């Protein structure tokens, strides 16, 4: 091998090694950026409740406001479904948004999975979609109403008025929130319903809404309905718009808004819509 060829060969080898190093560094940097944000552990309480209503064990996490003082203050509470996935994001953004609006923060109560979400969040069995629901929403709501909420009021200074309770859910969680609106309207005054699966069981929630309309229609309530603009799977948009119209036209004391998150799909729109829903809640509560 001549000197010039050897020089070229070793030069190429060096460049290849540098390229591999660069790819490796970029990959490591990418992995480092994938860290999920975690809410301040000093302001987080965790415990479990074994439900006497449905027998399931629920992991509960609570994000406390700064200067938490349950002896002297009462706090509004946001009950978060799919809590194991959403707790940190909701808690962090509640803190930020309440601070931006100079409004006192709330308790964020995360409800973990005691049963499969397709059981706890669906109002009737079946459903017609890819995931068959178990129809456990009634028992789940009774667990929240009779076991979780009293505990929150006794131990953590949660306000006992309906208007200071909010339920937040996405997808089947949004369906469960809509079911809470129709069948447990005395429990919650505020609803953040994100990409709700309103198609479930031939739009069963619409039927519940009609059945309970006379009881619920004069209650004051805040409702945020959000979904992704690109949820074009053929089952989300039409019932979303229909539900919005049904509530807006029949509830004189409702403050309601709907929001389509641009360019985003079912999962991608979840967090941006959580932010929009919390902003709506803190602005109008």
């Amino acid at each position, binding site marked *: 091998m001549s000197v010039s060829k050897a020089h070229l060969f070793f030069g190429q080898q060096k460049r290849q090694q540098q390229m591999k190093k660069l790819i490796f560094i970029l990959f490591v940097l990418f992995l480092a950026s994938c860290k999920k944000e975690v809410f301040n552990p000093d302001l987080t309480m965790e415990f479990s409740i074994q439900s006497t209503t449905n027998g399931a064990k629920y992991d509960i996490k609570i994000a406390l406001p700064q200067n938490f003082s349950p002896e002297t203050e009462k706090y509004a509470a946001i009950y978060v479904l799919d809590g194991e996935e959403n707790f940190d994001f909701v808690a962090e953004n509640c803190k930020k948004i309440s601070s931006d609006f100079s409004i006192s923060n709330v308790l964020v109560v995360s409800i973990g999975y005691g049963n499969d979400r397709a059981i706890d969040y669906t109002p009737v069995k079946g459903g017609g979609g890819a995931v068959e629901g178990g129809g456990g929403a009634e028992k789940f709501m009774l667990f929240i109403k009779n076991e979780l909420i009293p505990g929150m009021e006794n131990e953590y200074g949660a306000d006992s008025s309906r208007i200071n309770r909010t339920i937040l859910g996405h997808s089947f969680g949004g369906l469960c929130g809509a079911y809470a609106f129709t069948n447990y309207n005395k429990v919650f005054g505020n609803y953040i319903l994100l990409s709700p699966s309103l198609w479930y069981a031939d739009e069963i929630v619409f039927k519940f809404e009609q059945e309970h309309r006379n009881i619920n229609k004069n209650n004051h309530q805040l409702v945020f309905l959000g979904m992704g603009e690109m949820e074009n799977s053929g*089952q989300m948009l039409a019932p979303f718009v229909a539900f919005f119209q*049904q509530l807006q036209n029949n509830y004189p004391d409702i403050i309601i808004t709907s929001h389509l998150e641009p360019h985003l*799909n079912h999962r991608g729109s979840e*967090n941006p819509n959580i932010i929009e829903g919390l902003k709506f809640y803190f602005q109008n509560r």
Partner: protein
Amino acid sequence: MKTIVYLSIFFSFLTLSASAQNIDSEIARKSIPVRRITIEPAIGLEPMSDLIISNLVQLNIKKRLSIVSYTSYSYNNAMQRDFSYIKTNYNYTLSQKFGVGTSLYTKHSSHTFSLMSGIRYDAYKETLENPDFEKVSASVSSLSPDLGLLYNLKIGKKKYFFSYRMYIPLYPYPIISSDIWSLNDNLVNLSLEFGLGIRLK
């Protein structure tokens, strides 16, 4: 975690391809299927049962540098147009992207990796036709940027060759949401396409 796995595979593949190219470089130099202009119509699928008809035109400016044009029409949600009293009136996506790519060659195939950008137009309309409730229709039409990585495999040395491509969308991540889980949603739009390539020059 799914996202990390996908991207790990992608980066590993890039690295391996680079290594493989070095090993095969001597063979490739002798007989590489470098084409000046190719046109590659294909059909494909997205995981959410969307059917795609697309066309790719690739112009190799140099051996390792190419310009790519990609046009597609997607018939969305093909398998479930009527569901739970909800009728899909129409649901489609049009996309036009341009990109710059680099190619790696082996004896009978070439791998092209391109960074693509362009626009996409999505339109869909649904009607709730449950006899128990009021009939309600709703529609969305949206123009959005389209950014992604395109991998294109060509197998065959003659005028006609087999073409496979995979498009990994990068928009809206990380532009709208800084949350890593949004990428999962993006990968729902990952498309796999198979077709026939024709060398024009």
